[in-house]
């Protein structure tokens, strides 16, 4: 169980498919050899491609990103979460390239001694990722493709964290 700063390797971008079980294998807090068991809560988030979004019949989407900057921003979000809450570990894996409905786009997991911290940190990382990590979605329907517009609700969710002083959103 890591106790120091979360290393850059915990923030990843990949074009190969993400599977929930594989992700959680990367996020087992204990190897059976531990001397200490501080983790009481693990919260995970998986974001999936829906078949509706800006338009009702999404058949696929392609995620473009800014290689280099993306990994830096994702790692920065993990460190920020570790500053705000007491965390033992955190992981974010984001997929890029072309995906189909049902595919996992992003996986975030955090481990903490306390469930409130784990929930808040996981949601914080996702809300910040949505407004600060350089990814762009292009959706396809049967007869069209278009860049997805940023959502006002995502900007509001991120802003609410920045106003929060007690570790929880206002």
């Amino acid at each position: 169980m890591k106790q120091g700063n979360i290393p850059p390797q915990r923030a990843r971008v990949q074009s190969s498919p993400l599977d929930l079980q594989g992700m959680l294998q990367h996020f087992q807090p204990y190897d059976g050899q531990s001397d200490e068991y501080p983790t009481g809560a693990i919260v995970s988030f998986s974001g999936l491609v829906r078949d509706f979004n800006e338009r009702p019949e999404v058949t696929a989407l392609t995620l473009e990103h800014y290689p280099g900057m993306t990994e830096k921003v994702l790692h920065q979000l993990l460190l920020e979460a570790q500053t705000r809450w007491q965390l033992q570990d955190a992981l974010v894996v984001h997929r890029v390239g072309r995906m189909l409905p049902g595919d996992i786009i992003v996986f975030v997991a955090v481990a903490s001694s306390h469930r409130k911290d784990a929930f808040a940190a996981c949601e914080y990382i996702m809300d910040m990722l949505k407004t600060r990590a350089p990814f762009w979605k292009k959706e396809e329907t049967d007869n069209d493709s278009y860049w997805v517009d940023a959502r006002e609700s995502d900007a509001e969710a991120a802003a609410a964290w920045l106003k929060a002083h007690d570790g929880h959103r206002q």
Partner: protein
Amino acid sequence: MIKVLFFARLREELGIDGLQWPWQAGMTLAELLSQLQGQGEPWASCLAQPNLLTAVNQAIVDSQELLADGDEVAFFPPVTGG
């Protein structure tokens, strides 16, 4: 030289994913943007989009940022990942 990158909708509208641009001492991000816009269409209107984000050396900054020779500057629309 400045390494300039464009992403997503901007990359498609400009028809180019990046270019090299001459650096001058004291150059700010706002000046670079203005020089790029000076190339006529589609540059003028594309780079005038109100929500355009800019990163220097992979960190988001505002237009008063002073540029150094060899900097990597990226222009892109609001992000939509996750």
